[in-house]
Structures are given as structure tokens and as C-alpha cells.
């Protein structure tokens, strides 16, 4: 694995001579001393919630503030930061503005992803006005990054006769809503993606950033993308593909063909794993070693953020988990899939608490 903390401490002098002090103590390798090695931070799902006037829910504000304060400690600085969506709870101007004001304390360039909580009041108008397009791509040090808005759904649902835009927002915000509708990337963006990828060399590592998983895990909570197979088919010709997604508020990782999937933490609250809702089948990837359960006394437990190393075109996700144990899920070259660097083997796992 690419974590060389102990080694760093032992050989600190040599690294320091190069003028860098990696606070995160990681070794990234596209090749030794390659300019391609880089790290980026990933913050997601803050669900900033407006109460009234200048009042916002303290707990969710604190989660985002903490992630920002910790990310600001990274040395050397991450090349950029991804915000994974759901900066707002109900998509209002107040919530988006307040979230972005807090994000102003973050050092570095941020690329934003649209979440359903940012979208379903005005179909993303205010978000796009503040942040620009909700699907786009950019290149960084030899890696092609694609941002998708994966939380749109069928027009019939979106444009049915809602009492108000907020009624639509609240319907989409609800779990297990029998009148809900599954997320998707949709034909317009799929066509855009096909064209965008045409220009890209097949050996170029691809990183796709979406809010929903781009795989089908659990429909009732929209841990789901309805056209996941079509999107995956567009990615398949490339040799190294990673999908990073928010929305699920928990550690998940998976490998489908040559595509690696990683979920990121929420700064707001943890969701339980879908298997705990025993009325429906869950398709949580078998690879995933679940998180231990949160201690509700500590509001930040089982929330957090992560920094990500591009390592040989694959990634290592370093989960920074306040009041819990940090975890690192990294691509294992030999096995060809991501795995937890410490807890993957069953004997090393912390047994879950099964009753309360």
C-alpha cells in the first residue's frame, strides 16, 4: 500500500530536504518523483439547514466547519477540492449561500457536484447561477475528471402537478417514498459524456464525480442510478476508471469490471447501511467492510471527509473520521480492486454491535 507513515518518520530528513512536509504523510506514485503525483480533498453532504433569519442548524454547520478546518491543515496543499453535493438541505437560496460562505474559509480551488438537495426546488437554477454548469470535465496532471449531475429523474415525475416546488423537493428528500423516483444521469448527459470521452486517450486515467453511486445498491434510499449500466458502458473502454460519489453518508467501495467505486463521508450525519432495513433486498457491494456504528453522543462520529491520492492512476481514499478511527481504502494492484488497508481481512474487522 502507499501509506508510508512509519517510513516517512524514519526517513523524514530526506523528504524534508525536498522541501515538502506531508502532514498527511502519504506517498503518491504515478512513478517516483513524477510530476503527476497529486492529492485532492473531498468534502460532501453538509445538508446546511436554514431555520429562520440568520439561524442555521448548528450541528450541520459544525460538521462542514470541521471538515474545512482539517482540510486546511493538509501540507502540502491538495491540488484542489471536490465538493460532492447536498451542500443544502432543501435547496433554498439561504442554504446554498450560507454553505458557500462557510466554504469560503477553505484554502484552494473547489469543483462542485450537484446533489438532489441542491436541485429539486428550482431544478438547480440558483446553484448553477452561483457555481456554473452542473456537468463538466477538466484535466489535471494527466487525469481526466468528469463531473456529472446524476440526480435528475424522469420528466414525468419532475413535471407532474406539484403543489409547489418545495413539495417536489420534500418528496425527493424522503427515504422509502413510495411515490419517489430513481436518480439517473439521463440521455442528454450520457450523450455529452460519450462526446467528451471521444477526445480522451484510452490509457488516460478517468475519475468520475457524481452524487449518486452510478451503480445499483438500494433503490428505496436512491443508493441507485437507474441508467448505471449505460454510464458504465461509456466508461468501460478506458483502462483505469474511478467513480467517487456522495449521497450515501457511509463508507462503500466496489469494483465492477475495471471501474472502481468509492463513496465519501458526509459532514452532516451517517446513514445506516441498507441491510438494517430488512424489508427490502440490499445490494451493498460484498467488498465493502462496513463502518462501525456511531456513538450518538458525539455528533461528529461516523461523519468526516477524505483526501484522495492519485496512485498509478488509481486512488487511495483516506477517510478522516473525527471521534472514530480513520480508515484508508486503496486500490490493490495484485487483486485489481480497492480494499481497506487495515480491516479488509475478516479477522481484523471490529465486530459490529448487533443490538442495543
Amino acid at each position, binding site marked *: 500500500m502507499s501509506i508510508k507513515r512509519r517510513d516517512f518518520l524514519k526517513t523524514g530528513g530526506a523528504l524534508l530536504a525536498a522541501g515538502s512536509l506531508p502532514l498527511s504523510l502519504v506517498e503518491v506514485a504515478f512513478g517516483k518523483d513524477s510530476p503527476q503525483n497529486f492529492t485532492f480533498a473531498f468534502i460532501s453532504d453538509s445538508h446546511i439547514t436554514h431555520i429562520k433569519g440568520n439561524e442555521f442548524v448548528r450541528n450541520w454547520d459544525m460538521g462542514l466547519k470541521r471538515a474545512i478546518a*482539517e482540510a486546511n*491543515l493538509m501540507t502540502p496543499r491538495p491540488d484542489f477540492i471536490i465538493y460532492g453535493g447536498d451542500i443544502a438541505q432543501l435547496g433554498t437560496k439561504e442554504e446554498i449561500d450560507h454553505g458557500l460562505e462557510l466554504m469560503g474559509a477553505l484554502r484552494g480551488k473547489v469543483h462542485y457536484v450537484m446533489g438532489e438537495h441542491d436541485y429539486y426546488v428550482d431544478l438547480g437554477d440558483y446553484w448553477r447561477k452561483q457555481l456554473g454548469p452542473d456537468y463538466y470535465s477538466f484535466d489535471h496532471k494527466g487525469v481526466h475528471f468528469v463531473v456529472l449531475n446524476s440526480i435528475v429523474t424522469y420528466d414525468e415525475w419532475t413535471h407532474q402537478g406539484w403543489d409547489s416546488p418545495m413539495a417536489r423537493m420534500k418528496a425527493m428528500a424522503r427515504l422509502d417514498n413510495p411515490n419517489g423516483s430513481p436518480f439517473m444521469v439521463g440521455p442528454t448527459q450520457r450523450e455529452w459524456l460519450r462526446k467528451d470521452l471521444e477526445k480522451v486517450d484510452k490509457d488516460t486515467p478517468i475519475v468520475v464525480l457524481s452524487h449518486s453511486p452510478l451503480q445499483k445498491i438500494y433503490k428505496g434510499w436512491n443508493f441507485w442510478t437507474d441508467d448505471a449500466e449505460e454510464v458504465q458502458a461509456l466508461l468501460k473502454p478506458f483502462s483505469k476508471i474511478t467513480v467517487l460519489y456522495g449521497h450515501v453518508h457511509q463508507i462503500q467501495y466496489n469494483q465492477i469490471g475495471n471501474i472502481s467505486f468509492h463513496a465519501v463521508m458526509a459532514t452532516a450525519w451517517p446513514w445506516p447501511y441498507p441491510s438494517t432495513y430488512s424489508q427490502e433486498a440490499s445490494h451493498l457491494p460484498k467488498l465493502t467492510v462496513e463502518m462501525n456504528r456511531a456513538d450518538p453522543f458525539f455528533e461528529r462520529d461516523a461523519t468526516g471527509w477524505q483526501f484522495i491520492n492519485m496512485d498509478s492512476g488509481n486512488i487511495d481514499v483516506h477517510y478522516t473520521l473525527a471521534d472514530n478511527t480513520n480508515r484508508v481504502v486503496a486500490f490493490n494492484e495484485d487483486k485489481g480492486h480497492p480494499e481497506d488497508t487495515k480491516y479488509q481481512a475478516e479477522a481484523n474487522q471490529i465486530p459490529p454491535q448487533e443490538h442495543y
Partner: protein
Amino acid sequence: MLQKLPTVGALSLALLCGPLPALGETPLGLPPVPIPADNPQTPAKIELGDRLFNDVRFSADGKVSCATCHDPSKAFTDNKPVSEGFKGLKGTRNAPTVINAAYMETQFWDGREPSLEAQSLQPPINPVEGGLENHDPILKTIRNDPQYVKAFREVFQVSPDEITMDHVAKAIASFERTQIAGNSPFDRWYFGGEEDAMSEAQVRGFQVFVGQGRCVSCHQVEQTQALFTDNRFHNIGVGFKNIQGRVAEIAEKFLQAKAEGADVDKTVLTDPDASELGRFAVSEDMTDIAAFKTPTLRNIELTAPYMHDGSQETLEDMVEFYNNGGRVNPDDPVSPFLSGGIRPLDLSDQQKEDLIAFLKALTSPSVAAATKSAANNAQ
């Protein structure tokens, strides 16, 4: 205790010494004291440790002993905001009590040492505590003191040349393991079933402690014992104002120095900024910024001032600080690194008074007596 000793040798040594009066009975409210297998308690070793603990010669100006800052007549603290070492030099941290330190899973506010044995080696050679360059003068003093030579021979079966700091540390730790105190009014009420051991206000205060005050989640009370600590590290907001806006800079500077070989013990006690990094200085984990160990609350009435920097003078101040969600004043800025367990409590004046009354029920009679008799003697 004895059945925990793993080796026959250690067991027979303990048996040879006969009953161990210094270990005594476990006080109400406390578990048996954990004794490391390689440092069994003996009366002679405890007596030697007591003497070493009080020996002022183990400092650069010949005036500072362990007891200078861990004064038995002040509940093994110094009742100062931060400790004063040789030549009156001030450190950055409040002296925690030695009483019940034997139960702590780590030592120092940031847990930088794992045991009592490892802890006592640091202060004599810290530049603002004992002020010695190294441990050599301590060993020299001991080897030239006939009483010490005799005691070390008896306790450790060593000749003067064979005495090491390891022996010194073991003896001091053995002494410290005898400084345990339970039997407080709370213990008699909660574990002993004495209904009138606590006043009505104290009983109400206990309800605040386990309820709206949210104290018990870290200052733990278990079914058969209460150490009033979780042995974890939390950022409760103390000292945030001092490093606000400079955390990244301070953290980077500290790590740079540490990577170049700077000693953590010396750095955190001499550099006020680095001190505020708390557990981070040890773990280098971003989630540990300004997190400090949960101290016990036993005998808290006698160990003012409070917090790692001694910044809270009274129990009233301390309760107000928590009530404000980790802030001195309700409109002070909140640390973004604040523990998720800390939030405004909205306690009424009555609840605050009751909570303080309850905290005063955690004083052990033995500690109160030692403090009182010292105060009387001083008059």
C-alpha cells in the same frame, strides 16, 4: 492483584514480602489498581518511591521535586494555573493530580507517555521543570547517598553502579500506585447504598451530571466503579482563542520541528502555541487538534484551577464554560475542531448550583484530611 502476576518469581517475591499493607483494600468506587507484571508492589519499593518523589536534589537548582507540583497537601497538585519549575520558570500546563493516576491508560494531558514509569522520567529533564540536562546528576546523587544505596540494594538487588533510571522510575511509580482515593460521599451513595451520604442538592446534581449536563459520557460512571474518565482525548474548546486563525501554521511548524528531532515533552511545555495542539502533537492525526485527555473528577473541589491550561479558576467558571458550549462567554467564537460531544447545555442557575454541589461530593475523606491538616499546620 496477586493472581494477575504471571511469573512464579514475581509471585513468590510478593509472598516473601508478606501482606502488602500499602496496597490495602480497594476503596469503594474504584477497581483494583492495575500493577504491571514487571513492577510488583513491595513496601520497601513504595517507601523508596516516596523518598524519590520528594527529593528536591533531582533538579537544576536543587529546589524542585515531583512534590513541588504534585503536593500531597494540595491533593497532589500545586493549585496554580500552570506549574512552576526550577528558577520559577513556568510551563504551559496545569499539574494533574497524582491521586488515581494509576488508573489512567496514558499519562500527561496529551497521553504522550503510556505509563507512570515512563512519565516520571520526563519532568526532571524538562527545561521548565527540573531543568537538568540529562538524568546523570540524579544517578550520581543516588549512588553517593548511603541510604539510597541501601534501599536500591534491598528493593532491586543492585549495586550502586547497577542503579539505572529504570529502577528510579519503577520505585516512583510504585509509590504513585498507592495514591488512590475513593470512598467519597458519592461512592457511599451510589455504590454503598447509603441514601443520606449525599445532600438533596447533590442528588439533583447527579441527575444533571448524567442528563442535561452530558458530563457522564466522558467522565464515566460504571456499574461497579467510577473513574470519571473515558481515557480518551477531546477538544472541548479550551485555549482556542489563543491559536484561532493560526492552527495550520502552528501545526506545520510543530511537525517540521518534530520531524527534525525536536522532543515533544520539551516542545509542548515550552512553546505555548505547540501546547495548544494537544493530542495532535503525539498522534499527528488532524482529528486530534487541541484534544486533551479527560481528567478524573475525583477530588475536584481540591484541585483548582481547572483545564489543561488552568484557565478556569473555579467550579462555577468551569460549569459556565461547558454551559456555553466550550466557550468562556456565550458569544465567543466556537472552535471548528470542537468535539461533537460539546454543545450549549442551557442549564438553569439551579441546575448549575446542583451540579457543583454534586462535584463536591467526589472528595475522598483521606484527601480532604491531608489537605486540611496541611492547612492547619501552616497556620
